């Protein structure tokens, strides 16, 4: 470790960290917002559910580097555009979260739904105020996986040149210099732990009944 280098480069490193944070969280947020209606749809399409979830799983098989390279072809963007990374990771997060949202909604006991209907909840209100909150623990588990693996996948985008912590790895190899590589790995793991903790904290806040249980 060469601490002088770290001090000298701290400005650029924090910039890369900010990029990394944005590139790994934004796709999860968009993915979740899309996955909630799609997960609901998957549950209510009956026969189509298997095909629907299978399609989402198929997306997950495409290697990340391949997706980063192919998306410009589809979107008409330039290869360096961070948008490619955002879209690719949104697709991954979506593929993972559609399944979790649909599983989470499926885990809500039917008796609870009947009780809510009997109390006069209309379908939309029942979904937003009863089903979704009760599905939070399962959805949060999926979110944790999505956010942690995103942090790791974002660094791969360094190979096409998108700015984020992964650039420290390519720089380290080119210069045969260990400090940026170690700094990059440590910051990636810290960021993953931080975001993972944040999701857990939010999930705890949203599910007060889980803490009071016996």
């Amino acid at each position: 470790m060469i601490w002088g280098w770290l001090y000298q480069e701290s400005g650029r490193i924090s910039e890369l960290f900010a990029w990394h944070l944005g590139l790994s969280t934004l796709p999860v947020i968009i993915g979740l917002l899309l996955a909630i209606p799609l997960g609901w749809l998957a549950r209510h399409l009956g026969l189509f559910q298997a095909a629907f979830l299978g399609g989402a799983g198929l997306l997950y098989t495409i290697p990340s580097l391949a997706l980063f390279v192919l998306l410009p072809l589809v979107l008409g963007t330039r290869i360096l555009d961070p948008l490619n990374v955002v879209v690719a990771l949104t697709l991954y997060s979506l593929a993972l979260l559609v399944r979790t949202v649909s599983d989470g909604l499926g885990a809500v006991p039917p008796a609870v739904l009947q009780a809510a209907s009997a109390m006069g909840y209309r379908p939309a209100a029942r979904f937003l105020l009863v089903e979704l909150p009760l599905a939070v623990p399962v959805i949060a588990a999926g979110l944790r996986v999505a956010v942690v693996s995103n942090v790791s996948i974002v660094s791969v985008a360094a190979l096409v040149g998108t700015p984020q912590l992964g650039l420290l790895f390519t720089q380290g190899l080119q210069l045969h210099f260990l400090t940026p590589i170690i700094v990059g790995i440590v910051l990636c793991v810290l960021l993953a732990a931080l975001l993972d903790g944040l999701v857990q904290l939010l999930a705890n806040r949203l599910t007060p009944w889980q803490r009071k249980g016996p």
Partner: protein
Amino acid sequence: MVSWFMDPEHWGGPDGVPVLLAQHLAYSGIALFVACLIAMPIGLYVGHTRRGVVVVAGVANALRALPTLGLIVLLVILLGPSFASDLAFVLPSLIVLVLLAVPPIMAATYAGIGAVEPEAVDAARGMGQRPLQILFGVELPCALPLIFSGLRSATLQIISTATIAAYVSLGGLGRLIIDGRAQNDYQQMAAGAILVGLLAFAVDLLIGLLSHLFVSPGLKRHSRRSPL
């Protein structure tokens, strides 16, 4: 794009698609094999005795956060000087591939064994089967659907990461992407990406087929029960 694939020059010689594909499959196959050798016994042991579940699950989750690219680059610089020629980048890449594949296989194996209905195990014990007979005759076959799903995610991750390892001069289809980037040849990059994607699809399909062949028909109803 089509013209790239039609050009016979891209299909022959030492840098041709068949050679790169064979390299990609060779690295992935070796890594998967070694990962199975490490992960399966641990998974079977933890699942059967239910000891060490917390440790295994914790390690599996922590490894998910490690940035692969950083790990490969780190190992190349650390181990590179101690090995001659090709081994200097092949060995670090293989280590990382194995490291990535062990957690999903291990987790799926112990979860699969752990989820076997206790009645089935009790019945086998009542019939006088010994622990090892129970493990390989009852628990393992019942756990196969989940084990295959773990193998599937491990294999896809290996294929994906082997692509990345082309950056440290490993062969395989990733070469097309990395070299294409260096030469600003988008055609070649896209061709590499398509080939890698197709390879992943094909392997995914193959594992699905194997799982279909090996899982006992009586268990098929349960196979979608717990997604990993």
